[in-house]
Protein backbone atom coordinates (compact mmCIF):
# COMPACT_ATOMS: atom_id res chain seq x y z
CA UNK A 1 0.00 0.00 0.00
CA UNK A 2 2.91 2.33 0.69
CA UNK A 3 3.72 2.54 -3.00
CA UNK A 4 0.41 4.23 -3.74
CA UNK A 5 1.72 7.36 -2.00
CA UNK A 6 4.35 7.85 -4.65
CA UNK A 7 2.10 7.16 -7.65
CA UNK A 8 0.01 9.85 -9.36
CA UNK A 9 -3.31 10.40 -7.56
CA UNK A 10 -5.85 7.91 -8.79
CA UNK A 11 -8.65 10.45 -8.60
CA UNK A 12 -9.07 13.81 -10.19
CA UNK A 13 -11.37 16.56 -8.94
CA UNK A 14 -14.22 17.28 -11.35
CA UNK A 15 -17.06 19.11 -9.58
CA UNK A 16 -16.88 21.75 -6.86
CA UNK A 17 -19.12 21.65 -3.82
CA UNK A 18 -21.15 24.51 -5.33
CA UNK A 19 -21.66 22.63 -8.59
CA UNK A 20 -22.68 19.46 -6.80
CA UNK A 21 -25.10 21.32 -4.55
CA UNK A 22 -26.66 23.02 -7.57
CA UNK A 23 -27.03 19.69 -9.33
CA UNK A 24 -28.67 17.87 -6.44
CA UNK A 25 -30.94 20.71 -5.39
CA UNK A 26 -32.10 21.00 -8.97
CA UNK A 27 -32.58 17.23 -9.23
CA UNK A 28 -34.48 16.94 -5.94
CA UNK A 29 -36.76 19.84 -6.82
CA UNK A 30 -37.37 18.36 -10.27
CA UNK A 31 -38.55 15.05 -8.84
CA UNK A 32 -40.89 16.66 -6.30
CA UNK A 33 -42.26 18.98 -9.00
CA UNK A 34 -42.65 16.08 -11.42
CA UNK A 35 -44.50 13.90 -8.91
CA UNK A 36 -46.82 16.65 -7.68
CA UNK A 37 -47.30 17.93 -11.24
CA UNK A 38 -48.30 14.49 -12.50
CA UNK A 39 -50.89 14.21 -9.74
CA UNK A 40 -52.36 17.50 -10.93
CA UNK A 41 -52.14 16.46 -14.59
CA UNK A 42 -53.05 12.76 -14.89
CA UNK A 43 -56.76 12.11 -14.15
CA UNK A 44 -56.09 8.64 -12.68
CA UNK A 45 -53.58 10.06 -10.22
CA UNK A 46 -55.77 13.06 -9.42
CA UNK A 47 -58.54 10.71 -8.42
CA UNK A 48 -56.25 8.39 -6.50
CA UNK A 49 -54.53 11.08 -4.48
CA UNK A 50 -57.27 13.70 -4.21
CA UNK A 51 -56.42 16.69 -2.03
CA UNK A 52 -55.80 18.79 -5.12
CA UNK A 53 -55.49 22.13 -3.28
CA UNK A 54 -52.78 20.62 -1.07
CA UNK A 55 -50.91 19.04 -4.00
CA UNK A 56 -51.15 22.35 -5.83
CA UNK A 57 -49.60 24.11 -2.83
CA UNK A 58 -46.81 21.53 -2.69
CA UNK A 59 -46.15 22.05 -6.39
CA UNK A 60 -46.14 25.82 -6.12
CA UNK A 61 -44.08 26.00 -2.92
CA UNK A 62 -41.52 23.56 -4.28
CA UNK A 63 -41.18 25.66 -7.41
CA UNK A 64 -40.66 28.75 -5.29
CA UNK A 65 -38.19 26.99 -2.97
CA UNK A 66 -36.30 25.71 -6.02
CA UNK A 67 -35.87 29.22 -7.45
CA UNK A 68 -34.80 30.66 -4.10
CA UNK A 69 -32.39 27.79 -3.44
CA UNK A 70 -30.73 28.09 -6.86
CA UNK A 71 -30.34 31.84 -6.37
CA UNK A 72 -28.87 31.33 -2.87
CA UNK A 73 -26.40 28.67 -3.98
CA UNK A 74 -25.19 30.94 -6.76
CA UNK A 75 -25.00 33.96 -4.44
CA UNK A 76 -23.23 32.18 -1.57
CA UNK A 77 -21.24 29.60 -3.51
CA UNK A 78 -18.07 29.68 -5.53
CA UNK A 79 -19.18 32.19 -8.13
CA UNK A 80 -15.77 32.44 -9.76
CA UNK A 81 -15.79 28.72 -10.31
CA UNK A 82 -19.32 28.89 -11.70
CA UNK A 83 -18.30 31.63 -14.11
CA UNK A 84 -15.48 29.44 -15.38
CA UNK A 85 -17.84 26.51 -15.70
CA UNK A 86 -20.28 28.69 -17.63
CA UNK A 87 -17.47 29.67 -20.01
CA UNK A 88 -16.58 26.02 -20.52
CA UNK A 89 -20.20 25.09 -21.19
CA UNK A 90 -20.63 27.93 -23.66
CA UNK A 91 -17.55 27.24 -25.77
CA UNK A 92 -17.76 24.62 -28.50
CA UNK A 93 -14.34 24.16 -30.09
CA UNK A 94 -13.62 22.26 -33.27
CA UNK A 95 -13.37 18.94 -31.41
CA UNK A 96 -16.80 19.52 -29.85
CA UNK A 97 -18.35 20.30 -33.20
CA UNK A 98 -16.87 17.15 -34.72
CA UNK A 99 -17.91 15.12 -31.67
CA UNK A 100 -21.52 16.22 -32.20
CA UNK A 101 -21.27 14.75 -35.69
CA UNK A 102 -20.32 11.46 -34.04
CA UNK A 103 -16.66 11.77 -34.96
CA UNK A 104 -14.68 10.67 -31.87
CA UNK A 105 -12.55 13.59 -30.66
CA UNK A 106 -10.85 14.33 -27.33
CA UNK A 107 -13.15 16.25 -25.01
CA UNK A 108 -12.72 18.72 -22.17
CA UNK A 109 -14.25 18.54 -18.66
CA UNK A 110 -17.65 18.52 -20.40
CA UNK A 111 -18.20 16.76 -23.68
CA UNK A 112 -20.30 18.50 -26.33
CA UNK A 113 -23.40 16.50 -25.44
CA UNK A 114 -23.10 17.52 -21.79
CA UNK A 115 -22.72 21.14 -22.86
CA UNK A 116 -25.90 20.93 -24.93
CA UNK A 117 -27.71 19.18 -22.08
CA UNK A 118 -26.66 21.98 -19.74
CA UNK A 119 -27.90 24.67 -22.15
CA UNK A 120 -31.24 22.89 -22.61
CA UNK A 121 -31.65 22.23 -18.89
CA UNK A 122 -30.99 25.88 -18.08
CA UNK A 123 -33.40 26.98 -20.79
CA UNK A 124 -36.11 24.60 -19.61
CA UNK A 125 -35.61 25.82 -16.05
CA UNK A 126 -36.22 29.42 -17.13
CA UNK A 127 -39.26 28.44 -19.21
CA UNK A 128 -40.71 26.25 -16.43
CA UNK A 129 -40.30 29.15 -14.00
CA UNK A 130 -41.86 31.73 -16.33
CA UNK A 131 -44.81 29.56 -17.36
CA UNK A 132 -45.29 28.38 -13.78
CA UNK A 133 -45.40 31.91 -12.41
CA UNK A 134 -47.81 32.86 -15.22
CA UNK A 135 -50.10 29.93 -14.36
CA UNK A 136 -50.12 31.07 -10.75
CA UNK A 137 -50.44 34.80 -11.40
CA UNK A 138 -52.91 34.35 -14.26
CA UNK A 139 -55.31 32.88 -11.72
CA UNK A 140 -55.21 36.26 -10.00
CA UNK A 141 -54.95 38.66 -12.90
CA UNK A 142 -56.75 38.31 -16.22
CA UNK A 143 -54.12 40.12 -18.24
CA UNK A 144 -51.55 37.43 -17.52
CA UNK A 145 -53.78 34.57 -18.60
CA UNK A 146 -52.68 33.14 -21.94
CA UNK A 147 -54.27 30.18 -23.67
CA UNK A 148 -50.85 28.68 -24.38
CA UNK A 149 -49.21 28.87 -20.95
CA UNK A 150 -50.28 25.44 -19.85
CA UNK A 151 -49.26 23.95 -23.21
CA UNK A 152 -45.76 25.32 -22.70
CA UNK A 153 -45.59 24.01 -19.13
CA UNK A 154 -46.81 20.54 -20.19
CA UNK A 155 -44.62 20.46 -23.29
CA UNK A 156 -41.56 21.25 -21.17
CA UNK A 157 -42.48 18.39 -18.87
CA UNK A 158 -42.46 15.94 -21.78
CA UNK A 159 -39.19 17.29 -23.20
CA UNK A 160 -37.58 17.22 -19.75
CA UNK A 161 -38.63 13.61 -19.30
CA UNK A 162 -36.84 12.72 -22.54
CA UNK A 163 -33.69 14.51 -21.34
CA UNK A 164 -34.01 12.90 -17.91
CA UNK A 165 -34.33 9.38 -19.29
CA UNK A 166 -31.19 9.87 -21.39
CA UNK A 167 -29.38 11.44 -18.44
CA UNK A 168 -30.32 8.60 -16.06
CA UNK A 169 -29.37 5.98 -18.63
CA UNK A 170 -25.89 7.45 -19.06
CA UNK A 171 -25.45 8.07 -15.33
CA UNK A 172 -26.79 4.80 -13.94
CA UNK A 173 -26.81 2.11 -16.62
CA UNK A 174 -24.48 2.64 -19.56
CA UNK A 175 -21.26 0.94 -18.41
CA UNK A 176 -18.65 3.27 -19.85
CA UNK A 177 -20.25 6.54 -18.68
CA UNK A 178 -21.85 5.65 -15.37
CA UNK A 179 -18.66 6.34 -13.44
CA UNK A 180 -19.52 10.04 -13.95
CA UNK A 181 -22.05 9.62 -11.13
CA UNK A 182 -19.13 9.44 -8.71
CA UNK A 183 -18.02 12.86 -9.89
CA UNK A 184 -21.30 14.54 -9.14
CA UNK A 185 -21.69 12.81 -5.76
CA UNK A 186 -18.16 12.90 -4.31
CA UNK A 187 -16.60 15.49 -6.58
CA UNK A 188 -13.85 13.37 -8.09
CA UNK A 189 -13.54 10.72 -10.78
CA UNK A 190 -10.97 8.05 -11.59
CA UNK A 191 -8.10 9.49 -13.57
CA UNK A 192 -7.96 6.58 -16.02
CA UNK A 193 -11.68 7.02 -16.72
CA UNK A 194 -11.23 10.76 -17.23
CA UNK A 195 -8.36 10.13 -19.64
CA UNK A 196 -10.67 8.13 -21.85
CA UNK A 197 -13.70 10.43 -21.69
CA UNK A 198 -12.24 13.87 -21.01
CA UNK A 199 -8.63 13.67 -22.16
CA UNK A 200 -8.22 17.36 -22.96
CA UNK A 201 -9.32 18.24 -19.46
CA UNK A 202 -6.86 15.79 -17.90
CA UNK A 203 -4.09 17.36 -19.99
CA UNK A 204 -5.09 20.85 -18.90
CA UNK A 205 -5.12 19.76 -15.26
CA UNK A 206 -1.63 18.33 -15.65
CA UNK A 207 -0.36 21.64 -17.02
CA UNK A 208 -2.15 23.62 -14.35
CA UNK A 209 -0.99 21.47 -11.42
CA UNK A 210 2.33 19.98 -12.49
CA UNK A 211 3.47 19.36 -8.89
CA UNK A 212 0.39 17.51 -7.79
CA UNK A 213 0.46 15.34 -10.83
CA UNK A 214 3.92 14.99 -12.32
CA UNK A 215 3.82 14.17 -16.02
CA UNK A 216 5.08 10.76 -16.87
CA UNK A 217 3.62 9.09 -13.78
CA UNK A 218 0.31 8.42 -15.47
CA UNK A 219 -1.09 4.94 -15.17
CA UNK A 220 -2.70 4.40 -18.51
Amino acid at each position, binding site marked *: MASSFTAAPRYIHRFSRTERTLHWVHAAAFFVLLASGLVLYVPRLS*ELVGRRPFVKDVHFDTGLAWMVAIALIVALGDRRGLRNTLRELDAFDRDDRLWLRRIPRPQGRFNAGQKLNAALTASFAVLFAVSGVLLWYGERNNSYRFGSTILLHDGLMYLSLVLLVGHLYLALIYPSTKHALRGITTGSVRRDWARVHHSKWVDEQRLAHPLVDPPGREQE
Partner: protein
Amino acid sequence: MMDTPREAPPEASRPYGRRAFLGVTALGLSSLLWGKFAWNAFTSAAQPLEDALPPSLVPSGWRIYTVASSMPTFDEATWRLGIEGLVDAPQTLTYADLRALPRAEQISTFHCVTGWSVKNVHWAGVRFRDLLAAAKPRSEGTVLEFVSAEQPYVDTLTLEQADLHDAMLAYEMDGKPLPREHGAPVRVVIPEMYGYKNTKWVQRIVVTDHVSPGYWEQRGYDIDAFVGKSNGL
Protein backbone atom coordinates in the same frame (compact mmCIF):
# COMPACT_ATOMS: atom_id res chain seq x y z
CA MET B 1 5.92 13.27 -22.40
CA MET B 2 2.71 11.62 -23.36
CA ASP B 3 0.81 14.60 -24.67
CA THR B 4 -2.06 13.85 -26.97
CA PRO B 5 -0.97 14.81 -30.46
CA ARG B 6 -2.70 17.88 -31.87
CA GLU B 7 -3.43 17.84 -35.57
CA ALA B 8 -4.13 21.55 -35.78
CA PRO B 9 -3.32 24.48 -33.53
CA PRO B 10 -6.10 25.42 -31.09
CA GLU B 11 -8.61 27.62 -32.81
CA ALA B 12 -11.36 29.96 -31.67
CA SER B 13 -14.31 28.22 -30.12
CA ARG B 14 -17.87 29.19 -30.87
CA PRO B 15 -20.45 30.20 -28.24
CA TYR B 16 -22.96 27.49 -29.13
CA GLY B 17 -23.86 27.01 -25.48
CA ARG B 18 -25.40 30.44 -25.06
CA ARG B 19 -26.93 30.26 -28.53
CA ALA B 20 -28.67 27.02 -27.67
CA PHE B 21 -29.84 28.48 -24.35
CA LEU B 22 -31.06 31.78 -25.79
CA GLY B 23 -32.58 30.18 -28.87
CA VAL B 24 -34.58 27.59 -26.96
CA THR B 25 -35.63 30.13 -24.34
CA ALA B 26 -36.82 32.58 -27.01
CA LEU B 27 -38.67 29.80 -28.83
CA GLY B 28 -40.34 28.74 -25.61
CA LEU B 29 -41.36 32.26 -24.58
CA SER B 30 -42.71 33.10 -28.03
CA SER B 31 -44.79 29.91 -27.91
CA LEU B 32 -46.98 31.74 -25.39
CA LEU B 33 -48.26 33.58 -28.46
CA TRP B 34 -48.39 30.79 -31.05
CA GLY B 35 -48.45 27.58 -28.98
CA LYS B 36 -52.17 27.07 -29.02
CA PHE B 37 -52.52 27.67 -32.77
CA ALA B 38 -49.67 25.27 -33.48
CA TRP B 39 -51.17 22.68 -31.14
CA ASN B 40 -54.62 22.97 -32.76
CA ALA B 41 -53.08 22.63 -36.22
CA PHE B 42 -51.13 19.60 -35.03
CA THR B 43 -54.12 17.88 -33.44
CA SER B 44 -56.28 18.39 -36.53
CA ALA B 45 -53.46 17.04 -38.69
CA ALA B 46 -53.12 14.06 -36.35
CA GLN B 47 -56.88 13.41 -36.29
CA PRO B 48 -56.73 10.52 -38.83
CA LEU B 49 -54.03 8.88 -36.72
CA GLU B 50 -56.12 9.35 -33.59
CA ASP B 51 -59.14 7.81 -35.31
CA ALA B 52 -57.05 4.84 -36.39
CA LEU B 53 -55.71 4.11 -32.91
CA PRO B 54 -57.71 2.22 -30.29
CA PRO B 55 -59.31 4.78 -27.96
CA SER B 56 -57.42 3.44 -24.95
CA LEU B 57 -54.14 4.57 -26.52
CA VAL B 58 -55.27 8.13 -27.14
CA PRO B 59 -54.74 10.41 -24.14
CA SER B 60 -58.14 11.67 -23.01
CA GLY B 61 -56.92 15.23 -22.60
CA TRP B 62 -58.90 15.68 -19.40
CA ARG B 63 -57.46 17.12 -16.25
CA ILE B 64 -59.36 16.74 -13.04
CA TYR B 65 -59.78 19.86 -10.95
CA THR B 66 -61.13 19.61 -7.45
CA VAL B 67 -61.25 22.01 -4.55
CA ALA B 68 -61.93 19.73 -1.58
CA SER B 69 -59.60 17.19 -0.06
CA SER B 70 -61.44 14.23 -1.56
CA MET B 71 -64.02 13.64 -4.28
CA PRO B 72 -67.64 13.02 -3.30
CA THR B 73 -68.75 9.39 -3.50
CA PHE B 74 -72.01 8.53 -5.22
CA ASP B 75 -74.37 6.09 -3.54
CA GLU B 76 -77.51 5.56 -5.56
CA ALA B 77 -79.53 4.46 -2.52
CA THR B 78 -78.99 7.66 -0.56
CA TRP B 79 -78.33 10.21 -3.30
CA ARG B 80 -80.94 12.96 -3.78
CA LEU B 81 -81.08 16.03 -5.97
CA GLY B 82 -82.87 18.97 -4.38
CA ILE B 83 -84.56 21.66 -6.44
CA GLU B 84 -85.58 24.53 -4.19
CA GLY B 85 -85.60 28.29 -3.67
CA LEU B 86 -88.02 30.44 -5.65
CA VAL B 87 -90.18 27.54 -6.80
CA ASP B 88 -93.80 26.66 -6.13
CA ALA B 89 -93.13 22.94 -5.72
CA PRO B 90 -89.71 22.07 -4.30
CA GLN B 91 -88.46 18.69 -5.51
CA THR B 92 -86.32 15.94 -4.11
CA LEU B 93 -85.35 13.63 -6.95
CA THR B 94 -83.85 10.18 -6.64
CA TYR B 95 -81.42 8.97 -9.27
CA ALA B 96 -84.21 6.90 -10.82
CA ASP B 97 -86.51 9.97 -10.90
CA LEU B 98 -83.81 11.88 -12.73
CA ARG B 99 -83.20 9.13 -15.26
CA ALA B 100 -86.93 8.98 -15.95
CA LEU B 101 -86.98 12.58 -17.20
CA PRO B 102 -86.77 13.24 -20.98
CA ARG B 103 -83.29 12.26 -22.13
CA ALA B 104 -81.16 14.54 -24.28
CA GLU B 105 -77.85 13.76 -25.98
CA GLN B 106 -75.17 15.87 -27.56
CA ILE B 107 -71.59 15.86 -28.71
CA SER B 108 -69.72 18.98 -27.74
CA THR B 109 -66.26 20.34 -26.97
CA PHE B 110 -65.21 21.05 -23.40
CA HIS B 111 -62.99 24.09 -22.86
CA CYS B 112 -61.02 24.78 -19.72
CA VAL B 113 -60.14 28.35 -18.87
CA THR B 114 -56.51 27.31 -18.40
CA GLY B 115 -56.22 26.55 -22.12
CA TRP B 116 -56.87 22.86 -22.65
CA SER B 117 -59.88 21.45 -24.48
CA VAL B 118 -61.42 18.05 -25.04
CA LYS B 119 -63.18 17.64 -28.37
CA ASN B 120 -66.23 15.54 -29.14
CA VAL B 121 -67.39 14.59 -25.69
CA HIS B 122 -70.61 12.60 -25.86
CA TRP B 123 -73.00 13.71 -23.12
CA ALA B 124 -76.44 12.45 -22.14
CA GLY B 125 -78.67 14.05 -19.54
CA VAL B 126 -81.64 16.29 -18.96
CA ARG B 127 -82.28 19.77 -20.38
CA PHE B 128 -82.82 22.28 -17.61
CA ARG B 129 -86.31 23.18 -18.86
CA ASP B 130 -87.40 19.55 -18.42
CA LEU B 131 -85.58 19.25 -15.11
CA LEU B 132 -87.26 22.33 -13.62
CA ALA B 133 -90.77 21.82 -15.04
CA ALA B 134 -92.20 19.99 -12.04
CA ALA B 135 -90.75 22.48 -9.53
CA LYS B 136 -92.54 25.39 -11.22
CA PRO B 137 -90.02 28.23 -10.79
CA ARG B 138 -91.65 31.56 -9.93
CA SER B 139 -91.36 34.45 -12.34
CA GLU B 140 -88.85 36.29 -10.13
CA GLY B 141 -86.54 33.25 -10.17
CA THR B 142 -84.03 34.07 -12.90
CA VAL B 143 -80.87 32.36 -11.70
CA LEU B 144 -79.92 28.73 -10.98
CA GLU B 145 -77.40 28.19 -8.25
CA PHE B 146 -75.68 24.80 -8.42
CA VAL B 147 -74.46 23.57 -5.07
CA SER B 148 -71.87 20.83 -5.37
CA ALA B 149 -71.43 17.94 -2.98
CA GLU B 150 -67.78 18.95 -3.19
CA GLN B 151 -67.83 21.71 -0.64
CA PRO B 152 -67.48 24.66 -0.91
CA TYR B 153 -67.89 24.53 -4.70
CA VAL B 154 -70.85 26.46 -6.06
CA ASP B 155 -71.62 28.21 -9.34
CA THR B 156 -74.56 29.78 -11.13
CA LEU B 157 -76.17 30.10 -14.53
CA THR B 158 -78.92 32.52 -15.43
CA LEU B 159 -82.07 30.78 -16.67
CA GLU B 160 -81.33 32.28 -20.06
CA GLN B 161 -77.89 30.64 -20.11
CA ALA B 162 -79.30 27.35 -18.83
CA ASP B 163 -81.79 27.42 -21.73
CA LEU B 164 -79.02 27.39 -24.34
CA HIS B 165 -79.69 24.54 -26.75
CA ASP B 166 -76.65 22.55 -25.62
CA ALA B 167 -76.76 23.12 -21.86
CA MET B 168 -77.83 20.18 -19.69
CA LEU B 169 -77.49 18.37 -16.43
CA ALA B 170 -75.51 15.36 -17.65
CA TYR B 171 -75.57 11.85 -16.17
CA GLU B 172 -73.69 10.03 -18.92
CA MET B 173 -70.38 10.70 -20.58
CA ASP B 174 -69.12 8.87 -23.65
CA GLY B 175 -71.78 6.20 -23.29
CA LYS B 176 -71.19 5.40 -19.61
CA PRO B 177 -72.60 6.69 -16.36
CA LEU B 178 -70.71 9.86 -15.44
CA PRO B 179 -67.42 8.76 -13.82
CA ARG B 180 -66.64 9.86 -10.30
CA GLU B 181 -63.88 12.27 -11.33
CA HIS B 182 -66.25 13.97 -13.77
CA GLY B 183 -68.86 14.61 -11.10
CA ALA B 184 -70.86 11.40 -10.56
CA PRO B 185 -73.74 11.14 -10.75
CA VAL B 186 -74.62 14.52 -12.34
CA ARG B 187 -72.83 17.63 -13.52
CA VAL B 188 -73.68 20.78 -15.38
CA VAL B 189 -72.64 20.82 -19.04
CA ILE B 190 -72.57 24.16 -20.79
CA PRO B 191 -70.02 23.89 -23.61
CA GLU B 192 -70.24 27.57 -24.51
CA MET B 193 -68.73 28.44 -21.16
CA TYR B 194 -65.45 27.47 -19.53
CA GLY B 195 -65.26 24.36 -17.40
CA TYR B 196 -65.64 26.06 -14.04
CA LYS B 197 -69.27 26.89 -14.94
CA ASN B 198 -69.84 23.16 -15.52
CA THR B 199 -70.35 22.35 -11.83
CA LYS B 200 -69.63 18.73 -10.91
CA TRP B 201 -71.29 16.56 -8.23
CA VAL B 202 -74.43 18.74 -8.30
CA GLN B 203 -76.47 18.08 -5.17
CA ARG B 204 -78.86 21.02 -4.97
CA ILE B 205 -80.22 23.49 -7.48
CA VAL B 206 -81.44 26.68 -5.84
CA VAL B 207 -83.58 29.05 -7.91
CA THR B 208 -82.77 32.64 -6.92
CA ASP B 209 -83.29 36.17 -8.20
CA HIS B 210 -79.64 37.24 -8.16
CA VAL B 211 -76.27 35.99 -9.29
CA SER B 212 -73.73 35.45 -6.53
CA PRO B 213 -70.14 34.76 -7.50
CA GLY B 214 -69.21 31.08 -7.65
CA TYR B 215 -66.11 29.39 -6.25
CA TRP B 216 -63.68 30.52 -8.95
CA GLU B 217 -65.49 33.80 -9.47
CA GLN B 218 -64.73 34.70 -5.85
CA ARG B 219 -61.13 34.15 -6.93
CA GLY B 220 -61.16 36.54 -9.86
CA TYR B 221 -62.67 34.61 -12.77
CA ASP B 222 -65.51 36.09 -14.82
CA ILE B 223 -69.09 35.27 -13.90
CA ASP B 224 -70.21 35.16 -17.54
CA ALA B 225 -67.58 32.77 -18.78
CA PHE B 226 -68.27 32.46 -22.49
CA VAL B 227 -65.48 30.64 -24.29
CA GLY B 228 -63.20 33.07 -26.10
CA LYS B 229 -65.09 36.11 -24.78
CA SER B 230 -64.15 36.20 -21.12
CA ASN B 231 -61.31 35.90 -18.66
CA GLY B 232 -58.95 37.87 -20.87
CA LEU B 233 -58.92 35.09 -23.46
